[in-house]
């Protein structure tokens, strides 16, 4: 075999997520590209959770419903997965809790007692899995020595027991993918922001973007950044704007509920022209909805939030590399154009794990915005050709920097003059035009494959669309930038496309509507809005129904 798809399923809160990552690392060590998805309920312990880890020689970012191997920690793992198992699926199960007719049965409690490795259920299972796949023991040792340092011996012991007591049935051939980091979408976003010079991350915990807080906090001191967790999301964004005002690059990470609370301050950012980056991780709404499940329902919301009219940059990365690259672009452009920039992601992307190959993306670095030249009196909102007023930050010797949420003159003093009010609105949209122009140099709309029928997607649906398209021989058009709307790029991408099938995880087909607004047309909508990402099988099935 040179691909595999493994599910680990059981009770939430007992290490399934971590076990999945570990399996991913093992398979990575075998020379594979990895993708892992995590499906878990909104509770800490109990409930039913599963992860699917896929390994492939290709780059992947999607899951199949059908798995090759199922590690079943309890009966739920069987009951919930009747449709995910086929005759060929190999079952490795916890015999203490699972009734099964065939497969690798492990009497976990007994074995762990024997081995004196209490609590290492999952290692035992992973050992069995490794042997099933015929992973060399040295691979296990190497990965464990790096990633499982605590309790290493005990872990290896439990793993070895599983390894020994199992027979190889699906040997995985050694792959050729180079050794690469396995990181989550959240980590990729964090890396991108940091590479573009982030100074401060402000947040209030919320699924699915809390891992960004965690990542940044872990390396706060080392990196010389600030991580702040204030009392509410309102404080979060206001603090972020405080940092921006001082010339410190700031970002906030949140989800719909938290972003809702930031909407007023978003308008302040626009009027005061303070750069801000918002990582907005979508999840199933409205309201609290299903907090640990995915959605792409907030495109319209981020496009139009806050009173008044102002431009915003919105990018939607589809995998880890795009997460890093486009987050850096977002931060750089937020500063260059002094506008709010959104990284519009979702639970699937934020909490998914990907093999990350930084060499496949252009070098990311910090871009300097237009800074004040120091001549004369500083005017924070100076008129200019492109609407961009050169930046300067306090303390600035003998100068004054005035920022404001009111309509203001060039110096920053409140005015209610109608001509200035009009001018200031024009200034905002001038910046948008220049931004749109500059973004023509970026691959804001990506295409993959060729053909008269194309799947249209954004964000985390990239991976599943690519695999579906390959199977059905279709083209894929991925919109990475959603605002400013990349008309020209899309036009080019759609060249030769007769049928455009829009794939979204929402009920309205929001991207389709956005296209319509901009003079384009989608022919079919394939929509999913039950909190779950498309599997490849599901998307293939749905696309087949509408394909011409």
């Amino acid at each position, binding site marked *: 075999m040179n691909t595999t798809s493994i599910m680990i399923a059981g009770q939430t809160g007992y290490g399934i997520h971590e076990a999945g990552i570990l399996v991913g690392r093992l398979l990575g060590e075998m020379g594979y590209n990895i993708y892992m998805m995590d499906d878990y309920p909104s509770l800490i312990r109990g409930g039913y959770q599963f992860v699917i880890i896929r390994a492939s020689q290709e780059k992947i970012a999607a899951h199949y419903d059908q798995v090759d191997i199922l590690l079943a920690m309890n009966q739920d793992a069987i009951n919930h997965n009747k449709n995910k198992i086929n005759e060929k699926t190999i079952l490795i199960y916890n015999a203490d809790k699972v009734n099964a007719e065939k497969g690798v049965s492990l009497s976990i409690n007994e074995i762990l007692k024997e081995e004196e490795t209490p609590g290492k259920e999952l290692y035992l299972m992973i050992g069995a899995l490794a042997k099933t796949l015929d992973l060399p023991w040295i691979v296990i040792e190497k990965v464990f020595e790096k990633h499982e340092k605590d309790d290493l011996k005990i872990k290896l012991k439990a793993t070895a027991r599983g390894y020994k007591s199992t027979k190889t049935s699906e040997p995985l051939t050694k792959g050729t993918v180079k050794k690469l980091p396995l990181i989550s979408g959240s980590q990729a976003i964090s890396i991108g922001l940091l*590479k573009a010079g982030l100074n401060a991350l402000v947040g209030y915990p919320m699924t699915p973007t809390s891992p960004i807080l965690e990542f940044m906090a872990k390396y706060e001191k080392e990196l010389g950044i600030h991580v702040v967790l204030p009392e509410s999301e309102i404080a979060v964004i206001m603090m972020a704007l*405080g*940092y921006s005002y001082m010339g410190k690059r700031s970002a906030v990470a949140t989800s719909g509920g938290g972003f809702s609370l930031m909407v007023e*301050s978003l308008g302040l950012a626009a009027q005061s022209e303070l750069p801000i980056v918002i990582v907005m991780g979508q999840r199933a709404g409205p309201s609290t909805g299903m907090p640990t499940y995915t959605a792409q329902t907030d495109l319209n919301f981020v496009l139009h939030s806050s009173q008044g009219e102002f431009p915003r940059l919105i990018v939607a990365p589809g995998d880890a590399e795009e997460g890093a690259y486009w987050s850096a672009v977002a931060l750089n452009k937020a500063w260059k154009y002094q506008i709010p920039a959104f990284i519009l992601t979702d639970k699937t992307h934020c909490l998914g794990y990907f093999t990350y190959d930084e060499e496949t993306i252009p070098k990311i670095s910090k871009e300097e915005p237009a800074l004040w030249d120091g001549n004369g009196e500083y005017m924070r909102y100076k008129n200019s050709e492109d609407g961009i007023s050169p930046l300067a930050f306090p*303390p600035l010797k003998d100068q004054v920097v005035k920022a404001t949420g009111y309509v203001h003159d060039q110096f920053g*003093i409140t005015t209610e003059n109608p001509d200035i009010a009009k001018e200031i609105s024009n200034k905002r949209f001038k910046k948008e035009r220049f931004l749109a122009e500059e973004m023509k140099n970026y691959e804001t709309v990506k295409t993959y494959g060729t053909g008269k029928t194309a799947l249209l997607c954004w964000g985390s649906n990239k991976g599943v669309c690519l695999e579906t398209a390959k199977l059905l021989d279709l083209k894929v058009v991925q919109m990475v930038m959603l605002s400013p709307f990349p008309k020209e790029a899309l036009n080019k991408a759609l060249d030769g496309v007769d049928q455009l099938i829009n794939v979204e995880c929402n009920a309205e087909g929001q991207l389709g509507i956005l296209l319509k607004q901009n003079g384009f047309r989608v022919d079919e909508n394939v929509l999913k809005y039950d909190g779950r990402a498309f599997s490849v099988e599901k998307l293939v099935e749905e696309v087949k129904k509408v394909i011409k």
Partner: protein
Amino acid sequence: MSELKTYAPIEWCPGCGNFGILSEIETILMEMKEAGEPMENIIILSGVGNHAKIVDYINVNSFYTIHGRAVPAAEAIKLAKPGTKVICFVGDGDGFAEGLSHLIFAAKRNVDITVLVHDNRAYALATGQFTPTSQSSYIASTMPEGAKEVSFNPLELMMVSGATFIARGYPLRKEHFKKILREAINHKGFSVVDILQVCITFNNLYKDYNEKVEELILKDTTNRKEALKAIRSWDYSGTKAPIPVGVFYQEARKGFEDYYSTFNENQEDREKILNQILDTLI
């Protein structure tokens, strides 16, 4: 003083208590300047309300934010550059209603900023509704029979929240008021001054204040008990008691900014560390 003025026309009603605050602040800033403090180290912020217009009138760095939200922005400004002097001008509607929780958390963190509350006991710019500190007898167009709740004592709240400098000032006691402001600004840590700023248009309390205001003399401003007692001796709902003005409490405590380390803005360092981190994730 004129060099601290901007060209913005002042938009307060004639006789408004805000004038007194503006002029004392200008004086203090000028003093600071003469004492060698570079004016660019001063950053002032405000929310939205009549009080908030003050940032337009003073020619120093400023961030005119939104209703109720100056304080968290000020906190971050301090974190971003601990060497600056950060002063927030807030209103009683702005600071005690819409933005109350920010005030409490800034006090809890003892972040080194100064919050000056233009407490005119009315939503003045919004045309005079009652605020959390309006006296019980206050009548507004939206409350023709008076408020349906009593006021709270914001300084008590500040005390239990962890503020390390707590005072009340009355601009008509010019010198005394100026002294309080000066101390508040100089205090290292979170300082708050509730200013009896009279709104002559909606809640003209000059008479009341002139009769009742008394300069407070506390021997030991580090005594919490004494401070609380003095703070509680007058309540905002409208007791006949004297109104103490002065510094109630002062304390030295580690500030929020002291927990943070300096930024490393060297992108090469950054790159190196990130690559190391990525290595750990292979």
